[in-house]
């Protein structure tokens, strides 16, 4: 019998509708692999038509009720407003034929957003996520134009336009541990942005990025305080760590033990594994599969995609012995890559992840209880100790 994942439909695609960008961020993973310059600048009509054909095949074959696409780049808005409208129209036509709903989303640097684009987002129900690295003095360190100019004011204008129109959006930042996270949180909250994430800077195991543990411990404290009496602040990475430590599952690929199964479609129709793996160097995600010769399901038989999935599940010996194996999962797969060992490493941020998870765990012990309707409550640590004592030695052989 085939493994479950081979029988499961692929209902999510990362679609690179543009392979170039209109700004020049110093930390960008995409252009660390020079082979992106060999790809067409934007997706053409023939590739889009074939992609939609493959998606409809997939929907019919598996009777899918929902299909999600994240439109990405480079900068996806370089694809042009007409192409966004066309794609959305075609998706609606597929929905009408199949009954499958489409969930279209886009991650953008925001500098091209204007009223016409807002009309496009609204009319076509395209969900928007903006990249903003907090206040201008942090954002403009890395996120600059090709002429070296700042971009923060342009993105801030996009925020105002979206908010004026009442369009909800998400925000992604990249951590800069040289600054206190309060600067990020205060800035976002001052802009009425209460739902965002601050991601680890991308780095392979061969690099030596600055430590981020203190940043994330402080960020957790800010999240905890903001949500003390009322849920007013969502920070994705923090919430995924908390959920993982409480026995739940992370909903992000960046933390938590789970298989890496993203299929990336490039501007020429090539099919590749996770795009961020390009930080491993030139051609590191290259395959011979494409949507003209292959179905979307074929990616599961592609050697590099399969190797990526296996690597995401087969953790290093250090991870296998770690008490945080499940909530951490070795961190983000690209951060485990080294030229010498491939992915057989812990994360380059292993010490930071361990310190952050330990800190959050100790805080949760003070805030989580077993409660009774009578009002009696017992700390979670004490309840675990009692439960462990009640079990047979064989059943409680957890090392965690």
């Amino acid at each position: 019998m085939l493994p479950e994942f081979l029988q499961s439909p692929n209902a999510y695609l990362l679609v690179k509708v543009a392979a170039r960008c209109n700004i020049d961020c110093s930390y960008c993973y995409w252009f660390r692999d020079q082979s992106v310059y060999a790809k067409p600048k934007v997706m053409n009509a023939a590739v889009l038509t074939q992609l939609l054909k493959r998606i409809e095949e997939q929907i019919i074959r598996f009777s899918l009720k929902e299909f999600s696409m994240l439109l990405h780049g480079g900068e996806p808005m370089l694809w042009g407003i007409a192409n966004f409208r066309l794609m959305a129209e075609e998706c609606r036509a597929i929905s009408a034929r199949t009954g499958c709903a489409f969930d279209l989303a886009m991650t953008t640097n925001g500098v091209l957003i204007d009223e016409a684009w807002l009309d496009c987002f609204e009319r076509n129900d395209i969900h928007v996520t903006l990249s903003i690295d907090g206040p201008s003095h942090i954002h403009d360190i890395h996120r600059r134009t090709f002429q070296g100019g700042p971009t923060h004011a342009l993105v801030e204008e996009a925020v105002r336009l979206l908010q004026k129109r009442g369009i909800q959006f998400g925000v992604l930042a990249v951590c800069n541990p040289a600054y206190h996270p309060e600067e990020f949180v205060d800035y976002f909250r001052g802009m009425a942005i209460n739902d965002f994430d601050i991601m680890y800077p991308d780095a392979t195991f061969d690099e030596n990025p600055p430590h981020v543990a203190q940043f994330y411990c402080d960020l957790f404290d800010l999240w905890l305080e903001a949500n003390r009496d009322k849920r007013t602040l969502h920070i994705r990475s923090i919430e995924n760590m908390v959920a993982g430590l409480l026995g739940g599952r992370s909903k992000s690929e960046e933390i938590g033990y789970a298989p890496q199964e993203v299929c990336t479609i490039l501007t020429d129709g090539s099919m590749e594994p996770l795009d961020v793996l390009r930080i491993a160097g030139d051609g590191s995600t290259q395959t011979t599969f494409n949507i003209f010769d292959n179905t979307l399901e074929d990616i599961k038989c592609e050697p590099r995609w399969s190797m990526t999935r296996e690597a995401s599940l087969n953790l290093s010996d250090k991870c296998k012995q770690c008490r945080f194996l499940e909530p951490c999962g070795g961190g983000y797969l690209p951060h485990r890559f080294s030229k010498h060992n491939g992915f057989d490493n812990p994360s380059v941020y292993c010490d930071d992840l361990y310190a952050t998870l330990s800190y959050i765990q100790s805080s949760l012990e003070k805030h989580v209880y077993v409660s009774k309707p009578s009002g009696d409550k017992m700390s979670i640590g004490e309840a675990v100790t009692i439960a462990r004592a009640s079990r047979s030695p064989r059943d409680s052989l957890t090392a965690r």
Partner: protein
Amino acid sequence: MPPLTLAILASLLQVQGADATITSDNKGVDDLLADIRGQLQQVDPNAPWVTPAAAVSNYTKTVHGKGIYHKGKYSKQEGVIR
């Protein structure tokens, strides 16, 4: 205390009695627990507290990545970034 798992939570609730619940005095943490409380009803409280390696081995065989989101897709339905 070890990082919690659904099996650990289910078994400690069994010990504490049917009316016991896992709660937090912090609204943010309690909101995240709400999702977990919902899942607990489907967990066998007598399931072994397996080692991480055993849990991983089982997970590798059975689970695929559905529900794992890539780099921040804003979810209008949930009103949050996933």
